């Protein structure tokens, strides 16, 4: 089984398909991907339309239960409004988790409202995914420090440090509440991450969806053709994504 832990419902999909995931799911079928963690895109660039995009993600998930796991977002700059939206997404929309893109959304990980969100995520048992690998707000060390402050919250390095900070991502992921998603580093870095990070906290993702181009072919085969042992590949692709949601 393959779970893609990093995909986006891009604006192009919404403009064309108006909340209908069937064509999106066809691409997953083409690559034998059973399900996906689905992030927005509009909600990461438009604070005013963010709740609307969170609703869209939840509605997509309702149409494809167990295939689409929605990750909502909220904007810490809104203060208490951000907290209310966070709780609404968990309690009303039943989202799987949250995605934050601090450099695109423009907030520091030291933001006091964001600290409240991180604490709540631990209490409500929903993981937080990050865009990582980018200064000045999204470096693995910054996320690692956050993980130390909030040990009950699960944090996911959504890009495993990308191309240039994957070594930092390996260090950050030594914390037991930090997971790492293979979505960005080159092939050799992927192999080294798989050697050096706990095998039960590694995920894989494609980052496809912002456009109609099918990026999965490249991203999936990049991973499959590495020297990562096949047993570990199976864990990463199919078992760990479900473990992330299991707080028992």
């Amino acid at each position, binding site marked *: 089984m393959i779970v893609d832990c990093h995909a986006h419902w891009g604006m192009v999909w919404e403009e064309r398909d108006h909340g209908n995931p069937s064509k999106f799911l066809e691409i997953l079928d083409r690559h034998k991907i059973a399900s996906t963690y689905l992030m927005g895109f509009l909600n990461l660039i438009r604070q005013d339309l963010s709740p609307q995009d969170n609703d869209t993600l939840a509605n997509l998930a309702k149409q494809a239960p167990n295939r689409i796991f929605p990750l909502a977002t909220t904007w810490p700059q809104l203060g208490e409004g951000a907290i209310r939206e966070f709780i609404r997404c968990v309690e009303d929309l039943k989202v799987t988790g949250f995605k934050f893109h601090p450099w695109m959304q423009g907030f520091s990980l030291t933001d006091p409202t964001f600290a409240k969100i991180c604490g709540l995520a631990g209490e409500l048992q929903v993981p937080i995914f990050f865009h990582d690998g980018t200064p000045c707000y999204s470096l693995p060390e910054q996320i690692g420090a956050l993980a130390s402050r909030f040990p009950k919250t699960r944090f996911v390095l959504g890009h495993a440090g990308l191309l240039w900070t994957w070594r930092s991502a390996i260090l950050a992921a030594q914390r037991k509440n930090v997971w790492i998603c293979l979505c960005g580093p*080159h092939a050799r870095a992927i192999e080294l991450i798989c050697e050096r990070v706990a095998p039960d906290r590694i995920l894989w993702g494609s980052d496809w969806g912002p456009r109609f181009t099918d990026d999965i072919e490249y991203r999936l085969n990049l991973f499959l053709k590495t020297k990562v042992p096949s047993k570990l590949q199976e864990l990463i692709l199919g078992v760990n994504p479900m473990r992330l949601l299991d707080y028992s």
Partner: protein
Amino acid sequence: MSDVREPSGRRVTIDGYCTIGVDREFNLTESALLEAMDRAGVDWAVIAPTDRMFAVENREANESIRAASLRHRKRFIPSCSVNPWFGTAAVAELERALGEGARVFLLHPFVQGFLANDELIFPLLDLLQTRKIPVYIHTGQPGNSTPFQVVDLAERYPSVDFIIGHCGATDFWNDAIEAGSSAANIYLDASFSRPFHFARYIESLGKKKGIMGSAAPLNDLVFEWEQIRKYLPVETHDDLFGGNLLSLLEKEGSL
């Protein structure tokens, strides 16, 4: 430009960036690189030093690359690099390496410890103005080496050809198209930029602006070539997969 083709009519293919030697986490031997090139249908490869040898021991690295290219005259294209912090010694080593036949000059600002458009490298570029050697600069490391820092250099040195390594990947992908169109003497290297993104850049900039590089062994050479052939339209292949780089290399004379 001379049109280097096999008897079959197929244009010679060139991998614009491969690293040989022992680094802390890989070891690509000459024979392994040749074997991968054969499997991928690649005729030539520009060979580059490991990270450690970008930073220090430049002469040893340049000599090692030259020796490998002499052993495989029809397969390897020698590059060279110097760390600009060595000052006048760096200029002297660059002059020596070019005299020994190096065909591409490489800079890795992140590993060598300077800003890509730092005046520290101007003496090196002053020398390169007198030659016809393209300059490949690794980019993508935030603040340290980005596409528009290379554009700045290209504007200062309009007679020097610059290759933007990795198209600014990852986070400077937004800049790739604008930077690529900013000056006539700028070219984009495909390695690490991912074929689906590189295809967009080429669609926008035209097939004369791109150069295929695999960045082996950090990437799998065979896989990268297989993928880029899938994602890029066939009518771009001759230029991207050898023609464009060959035209830059042959400004200095035939290979």
